[in-house]
């Protein structure tokens, strides 16, 4: 039975059966859960969320002076003269440089020449291996703005060829309609 409280008195007025129910939850919790929770949360904060770093209260008060002193000390410590580079080339150095440049140009030229060679497979050689049906299928699948009338006209010329008297325009149109929904 729960102790008398303002909430309980209200509940008794509203609904007496509920007021007599023991208000504990029937759910179970793993053993030791509440003992470990604070440490788990801190661990998660440290690992994933990043606990903000703490600095001494007076750290920023004298920070400018400390940074300036450190910079001055470093500049005084590094007063050794910088290494001088010679701009005078010996004849041998010049010859090596010119040779390297010539070889570079030669390789670039050869590479360009290789890329501009004619393809080894000609359209004529490929033609017997690719059917008109495959070409039409490719066009249907890959062209968004395919013009069916233009295609029909081209096919009429290509497919019928010499046998134009055997296939009528209507037949070709029906063929395209039933096979390619054109």
């Amino acid at each position, binding site marked *: 039975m729960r102790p008398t409280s303002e*909430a309980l008195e209200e509940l008794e007025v509203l609904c007496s059966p509920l007021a007599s129910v023991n208000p*504990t939850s*029937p*759910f*179970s919790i793993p053993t030791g859960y509440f003992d470990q929770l*604070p440490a788990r949360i801190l661990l998660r904060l440290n690992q994933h969320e990043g606990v903000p770093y703490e600095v001494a209260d007076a750290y920023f008060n004298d920070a400018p002076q400390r940074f300036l002193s450190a910079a001055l000390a470093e500049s005084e410590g590094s007063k050794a003269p910088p290494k001088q580079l010679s701009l005078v080339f010996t004849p041998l150095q010049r010859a090596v440089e010119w040779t390297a440049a010539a070889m570079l140009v030669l390789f670039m030229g050869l590479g360009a020449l290789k890329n501009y060679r004619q393809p080894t497979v000609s359209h004529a050689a490929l033609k017997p291996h690719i059917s008109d049906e495959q070409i039409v299928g490719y066009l249907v699948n890959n062209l968004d703005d395919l013009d069916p009338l233009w295609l029909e006209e081209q096919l009429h010329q290509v497919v019928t060829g010499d046998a134009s008297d055997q296939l009528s325009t209507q037949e070709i149109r029906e063929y395209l309609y039933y096979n390619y929904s054109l």
Partner: protein
Amino acid sequence: MIEHKEILSDADLLQLFKMTGSREQAFTAIVRKYQQRLYWHVRRMVVRHDDTDDILQHVFIKAWRGLDQFRSESGLYTWLYRIATNETLTWIDQQKKRTFLSLSDYESKVEQTLAAEPGFDASKLEWRLQQAIQKLPEKQRVVFTLRYYDEMPYEKMSEVLDTSVGALKASYHHAVKKVEKFIGQF
């Protein structure tokens, strides 16, 4: 080292949290002080322990981030309850969206989750009460659990939920009637 953590007031804990060197200890003391109440508040809403654990960790991580800026006008207790309630309602909302469930589908999923809990027995009154609570709309469920289990005064509840006392009383009364009706069906 903080001694006798359980007897320190919220004001003392907050002061310790803001002092360099005692943040983690003060935070641990805050977690220890409120973890059980917040746990049960969340658990009664979402049922599963694993989900509750996940939400509760988020609640305390948010609390850690916000404690520096926390002004004690509303009280630590109220503030933590508000974070826990918002996190829980957000989680429930995400679950519904993530699984594309309609309200009735979601209710049946929650019923299944409840039935899968260890020791579930639909013939026992405490489990039937849990079933009835899960049938309430989320915000009414929050009001019911805060009042029924935590016995939270309406004024405090008003701060937690940012709702008027009158609206909360009406919501609680409706919830009690629904629960009573559900339990009376058996």
